[in-house]
């Protein structure tokens, strides 16, 4: 299968991927973006440090929280997921947006959310929380040219999601913002 953007129309662009499997960004990279991958993070300071690595990034990809362990339903288990999967998404997205606003430039954020699994309280809570975070931020930042969308990580494998991510982050999907894709 060829890449979605084989002609590399985005050569020269940069993207930051936080806590995302490498395979997720294959089509973005094939389209010409230089992608920096950093591990998942969960506070404002680490988010800022990650963004400092890629000050020109116009795309931010926030990976999904670590796989759920529904059996470990204690507070520590909840925090282990909510840290990177919820707080981390908020801090990364807002740090990214502040920099784009200061630069008077638009941007695009793509968030992977856990599957809305009703048998897993932590994943279910984070899934709905992040979905509505995305819907909220989309409206706050629309007139600034910053789009933000979300994909459920249960839709497909990272390899299979890669073209969808490249599409949603491309200008061809410019009118898509605040969308939360689940199946």
């Amino acid at each position, binding site marked *: 299968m060829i890449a*979605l953007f084989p002609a590399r129309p985005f050569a020269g662009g940069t993207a930051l991927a936080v806590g995302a499997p490498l395979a997720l960004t294959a089509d973005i990279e094939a389209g010409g973006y230089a992608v920096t991958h950093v591990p998942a993070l969960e506070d404002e300071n680490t988010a800022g440090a990650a963004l400092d690595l890629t000050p020109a990034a116009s795309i931010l990809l926030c990976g999904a929280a670590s796989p759920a362990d529904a059996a470990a339903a204690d507070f520590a288990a909840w925090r282990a997921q909510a840290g990177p999967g919820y707080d981390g998404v908020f801090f990364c997205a807002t740090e990214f947006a502040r920099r784009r*606003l200061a630069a008077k430039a638009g941007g695009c954020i793509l968030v992977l959310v856990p599957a809305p699994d009703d048998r897993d309280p932590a994943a279910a809570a984070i899934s709905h929380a992040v979905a509505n975070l995305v819907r909220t931020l989309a409206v706050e930042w*629309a*007139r600034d*040219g910053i789009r933000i969308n979300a994909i459920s990580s249960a*839709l497909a494998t990272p390899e299979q999601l890669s073209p969808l991510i490249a599409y949603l982050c491309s*200008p*061809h999907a410019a009118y898509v913002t605040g969308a939360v894709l*689940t199946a």
Partner: protein
Amino acid sequence: MSAGRYPEPPPFEAGFLPPGTLAGQVALVTGGGSGLGLGMAMAFAQAGADVAVLGRSAEKLEVAVGQLESLGVRALAVAADVRNEAGVAPAFDAVEATLGPVTILANNAGGNFPVLADKMSANAWRSVTRIALDGAVLYATEFTRRTGRGGGAIINNSAHYVWSGFPADAHSASAKAGIVGLTKAQARLWAAHGIRVNCLTAGFFPHPVSGSGDGPEALERLGAMIPAGRTGRMQEFGWAAAFLCSPFAAAISGVALTIDGGDSLRRSLMSPAFTPPRERESLW
């Protein structure tokens, strides 16, 4: 003041999917003679698919066929009303005979008008719901019957007002929400057949025959009320459909993709005083 500027898509002519992505495929677009249906048909054709457009107005269809053929693909007009059960098999037969078996189905046909529910005639109710929902059921089941286990892709055209109610639109608000449920359930049911089913819940995509108009004044007024600051461009809608029906979305099924520039997400805790729909100057 806004910092950046809401992005515009490339022009249609710039293309999107790698050339020939849908080569060898045959798309059938209901309501394909104008508006969003033609937008999808054009995007399918641009990616190399042969396209049949189905509708009630032979005149509109012929114009659409000309536009599609100018993209270098084969195109066919099929005169039919999606509400007519007896017309479904002949419609597929006609496409098969000329273009080959249908591999992409776009259930797009729809109609809509403002009316209060208690003032809605039975005919008005049926005219909208049977086109949007019954039509989609009829064409999807026939598509699946013919496709067997050969696989294929269905894209349904829903609307962004399915995520809330839509006062004075009981027929379309319910029927288009039904499309979302239909999409998700058929996606699950037909996964084993290799058939993917997705839908688009679109906001404002003005075109020459849209009720909200597509003149400069209408565009400015509509754009101003949308978070994105503009209405959708038809190529954005068409490309979304083409992407979801392409091999690049081979693992994507059961999805409802909202493409509305954030219009369905506008909300303030405080709003102007509520006016019951029946007291409004304009129902919508």
